[in-house]
Structures are given as C-alpha cells and as structure tokens.
C-alpha cells in the first residue's frame, strides 16, 4: 500500500517483571480504514492500546503517529488521537456538557460550536445538561464517543466500544464509524471481543495472542467460497477429496469444502461415482469466529466471549 500510515507500531515490546506482555509487535494503520484488534483475554490488546495512548510506557520499540515518534512528540502526537479506553469513565458529578468542556480545554482550539456539533452528532442534545450519574450505560458510551471526536482526530482508538449499546445503538455506531472513516479519512482501530461486531465493521483484522501479533489480514481475503456437504461415509469422502487436491475440513456432521461454484457439479459427480451418499450441498460462510479459532488454536475463545 502506498498510502502513508497514520500510526505505526515498530517492534513494540512491553516487559513487566520478567514476563513479556507484548512481544515485538509491528503494525501499520492507514487512513480511512477500520482495523479490528482481536485476541483472547490476556493476549495483550489492552496493554498495546494503553501504550499507544500514553497510559503505559513501552519497554522498547517505537510508536509513530503521523511519522513522528510519540516518545518525543507526546503532545503533538496525542492531539491527533481520539481515545475510548474500555468504559468511558466520565466525571459523574458533572453534567455531560461540563465533561466535554473539561476535555475540550485540554485540546487546542475547540470552540463552543464544535462542542454543540459533536453533541448533536452523538444524539445527546436532550440530556447533555444533566449529570452523568443519571445517564444509562449507552448514553455514557455516546458521551465517550463525543469526547473522543471533539478535536477531529485523524486516528480513533476504541477499546470494547459497543459494550452496553442496544442493537439499534450498535448499528448506528457502526454506520457512524464507517462515515467518519470514509468521509474524513480517519483511521479507526477497534478492539472487541464481539467477533460478529468486528466482522461487520472492519476492513482488516489484526489478531494478537500471548503478546505476539499472529495474523493481519484484509477482510476481503476471508470471503473465500466454501460449501457444506452432508454425506456418508464422511471419512472416505474426505480422503477422496483431499487426494483430488481440495481443501477439506471435517465438522461433527459433514464436511466443509473450499471450492468455487463451478467446481461443485464435478465434485458431486466424483462423490456419487465413488458410492458416497450425498444428502445436502449448500454454500457455507466461514464466520470470523471460525477463523479466529483457527488462528488462535481455539480453547480460549469461550473466555474471550464471556469477558
């Protein structure tokens, strides 16, 4: 890609005690792209994000924001970043508006009009002058998004952003992220344990496990065509198809075959010719969850889901 990345992690490493929490992570994030950040619990998602926003010090490696190292240009770097780290904890004893004024004062050149504009964008006009302690979790999420957008960041980091939003809210949120990514060229980095969420939202995913980046892929790559076959005896069919050069995976009932649509008739002919009984053939969409299990070797997914 010849577009210049907004954020680059270069060999980022974090050691706490003797343990390497983050091990040599390198990653580039580009304008207009939404990148999902996946990993089981304790894989290092939050630690990585906290190093990117200045909450934690890195042990070695560098974070470049807009080409400049964050360690030398902390204030300039972070003024281009909007952050929601986990649940946005606001000052509960103040009104939503005062909270925004508070964060606006910590940035350069944010006008009253800009604050009002952001409040409208996240749909909080009705309640903005009430105390945050009276807000529902969803409203706090909206306020959290508002403070992250105040200074028109070039880069938006979201840690578990849809936590506590209702389905309509999640959908709206997703569309909103799309809009700012596409129209304003903002680069978005979302960590989430909701795999289906990431699947719908992201252009690209990065998977981290045990502090190492194990995979980066574009979502378009994952749209390979798969077919589900219900047949008997499955073992014979699997070895037969494998011997013909197909990628086959066995499920508890049936097989998943990687093949193009025009190959299917010949596959069926091959199977019936070998006296294998075919009960059903249907297109199979591999979900991100399946891929995630593949990449991380499974096991920890349940944990990641119940976080």
């Amino acid at each position, binding site marked *: 890609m010849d577009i210049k990345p907004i954020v680059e992690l270069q060999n980022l490493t974090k050691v706490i005690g003797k343990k390497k929490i983050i091990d040599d992570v390198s990653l580039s994030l580009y304008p207009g792209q939404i990148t999902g950040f996946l990993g089981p619990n304790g894989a290092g998602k939050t630690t990585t994000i906290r190093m990117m926003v200045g*909450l*934690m010090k890195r042990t070695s490696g560098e974070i470049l924001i807009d080409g400049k190292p964050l360690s030398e240009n902390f*204030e300039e*770097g*972070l*003024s281009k970043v909007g952050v929601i*780290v986990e649940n946005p*904890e606001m000052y509960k004893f103040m009104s939503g508006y005062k909270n925004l*004024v508070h964060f606006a004062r910590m940035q350069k050149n944010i006008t009253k009009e800009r604050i009002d504009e952001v409040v409208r964008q996240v749909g909080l006009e009705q309640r903005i002058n009430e105390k945050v302690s009276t807000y529902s979790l969803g409203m706090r999420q909206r306020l959290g998004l508002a403070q992250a957008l105040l200074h028109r960041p070039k880069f938006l980091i979201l840690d578990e952003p849809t936590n506590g939003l209702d389905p309509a809210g999640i959908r709206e949120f997703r569309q909103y992220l799309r809009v700012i990514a596409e129209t304003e060229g903002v680069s978005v980095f979302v960590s989430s344990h909701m795999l289906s969420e990431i699947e719908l939202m992201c252009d690209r995913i990065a998977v981290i496990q045990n502090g190492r980046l194990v995979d980066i892929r574009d979502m378009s790559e994952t749209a390979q065509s798969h077919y589900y076959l219900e047949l008997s005896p499955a073992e014979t069919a699997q070895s037969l198809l494998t011997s013909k050069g197909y990628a086959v995976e066995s499920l508890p009932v049936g097989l998943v075959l990687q093949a193009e649509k025009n190959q299917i008739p010949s596959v069926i002919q091959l199977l019936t010719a070998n006296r294998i009984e075919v009960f059903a053939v249907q297109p199979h969409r591999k979900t991100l969850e399946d891929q995630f299990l593949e990449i991380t070797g499974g096991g920890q997914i349940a944990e990641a889901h119940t976080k």
Partner: protein
Amino acid sequence: MLKLIQNEWMKLWTKKGTWIMTLLLIVLVIGLMGLTKWINSQNTTEPTDWKANVQEQLKYTNEALQLDLPESERKQTEETIKILEYRLAHDIPPLAEDSRESLIINPVAIGSLVVLLTVIVAAGIVASEFSQGTIKMLLTRPVKRWKIMTSKYITVLLFGILLMFIGFIVTIACAYILFPAGGGQELKWDGNAVVSLSVWGHGLYMLILSFANVIITATFAFMIGSVFRSNGMAIGLSLFIFFTGNTIVLLLAKYEIVKYLVFTHMDLTVYENGYPFIEGMTITFSLTVLAVYLVIFLVISYMVFTKRDITA
C-alpha cells in the same frame, strides 16, 4: 496551564463536598467567635486597672530574669521587660482581651481549621481520579503528566488560600458585630526600639505564618494521595501527623534529630506568640527545613505520577 487549573477548579466546585466544607469553615469560625463572646460574658469580674496588671507582670518578669535562663529565653524576657516599661512610661494600655482588635490580631484558629479542610481536598485531587477511573480519560489527552500534576497542586494551594481569606473575613465580620472596639495598642521590640504593631498587618502576618502549616500538611496529603492512590489513607496519615506532631517533638526533644523533623517546624506562629519548642531555633532555620521537606514531598509525588503505568 491556566485552562488546566480552570478544569481542576471546576471539578472541585461541582462537588457538593467542597461547598459543604466551605460552609463548615464559616459556621465553625462563627461558632468559635460566639463561644469566645459567651465565655467573656460569663466572666463578670470587675475591670481591673491595666497599669496595676502591667506592673505586676513586670515584677514577675524581672524575677524570672534572675533565674539561670538559656540565652534565647533571656533575650526574649528582656524584650518583654522593655515593652512593659514602655507601656508604663508612655501610658499605652495593652489590647483588651475582649476587644475586636485582639481577635483580629491573632487569628490562628483559622489556620488549624483550614489545614483539616485543605488536607481533604489535597488527598482526593489525584486519588479520586484513580478511584473514579477518570485517570485514563485525563491522561490520554495531549497534555504532559507533569502539567496535569502542577495544575492540581496549584488548585490545592489556591483552595487553601481562599479558605484562609474566607476565614479571616468571617473573623473580622464577627469581631465587628460581636465585640466592642477597645483602646490599647500592641507593641513590639524591633531590635532597636519599641514600636507599635498595626492590627491588620499583624493579623495578616499571623495568617501567613499559619499558612505554612497548611502548605506542608496539604503537600504531604497530596503526596500520599498520588503515591498510594488512596484518599482515605492520605487524609488519615496527614491528620495523624498534624495532631501527633507536637507529641512526637516533645518525646524526642532531648535529641539533636528533632531539629530536622518536619513536625518541629510546622507551627511558625510560635515565633510570634511564645517560645519555639526547641532552644535556639530561628524562623529562617524553620523555613529552610520546611522548604526541604516540601521539595522532597513534591519530587516523590511527581516522580511516581509521571512514571506510573495506568492499569486501572
């Protein structure tokens, strides 16, 4: 930086607790003044002749001079004698105990009250950001951590100063409402001659001296609050030190080390009101020791705060 202080000030005053504390200060000061008035009204002894009083005092002081006094005490006693003699010679009565001037000139009770309240704010200003979880919002802004820390510290000091002034103004108001103006004049030996003291100037000076205590105790609370991120611990430890300081000094009075303890120097008003705890100490020495402690407290606070990984 101004905007950061504005932020801290806004957060401070949006909390109900701050208003309650300020109100409490006003109520307590009024209460104390009322109590003084009540006690005075119970004392219905005949007004005595001030000249007789001064003469008697002079007699005692002269007797004290015959004893084997340490150098600094001897000097002070001699000064007292000079002042008393001056009063008799020039017919200047001392301030009457129940006059408004005598209340304004020595407003030390305000200092202790302000210490208590400022410590609460100082302890919470960093610790509460951690306990509310807002610290991660605060530190992901494009502002270096030392600036945030400085804005918080300045806010604590401003709060202390404000409370001192509120306390002083309430004292003055009460003094004018409750107490009669009295004749008399406060005198002081300035090294060469006996001079008269301005009530307002000296009152303000005492206020500033007692503010040293506010600064040092609040800074200590600020340090504990930012190192241990615990509001309660910071308040507890600071008040413990504030209340037990004198006892510790008395216990250790025999040893040289007591000179270098912070407790010995926290109450600077002793240099005006009476004798310092320890023989041969000057206000300059006290200020130096306090300054050293202040710097140590602040360095620890800043180091811990700017280096810490935020994991909460």
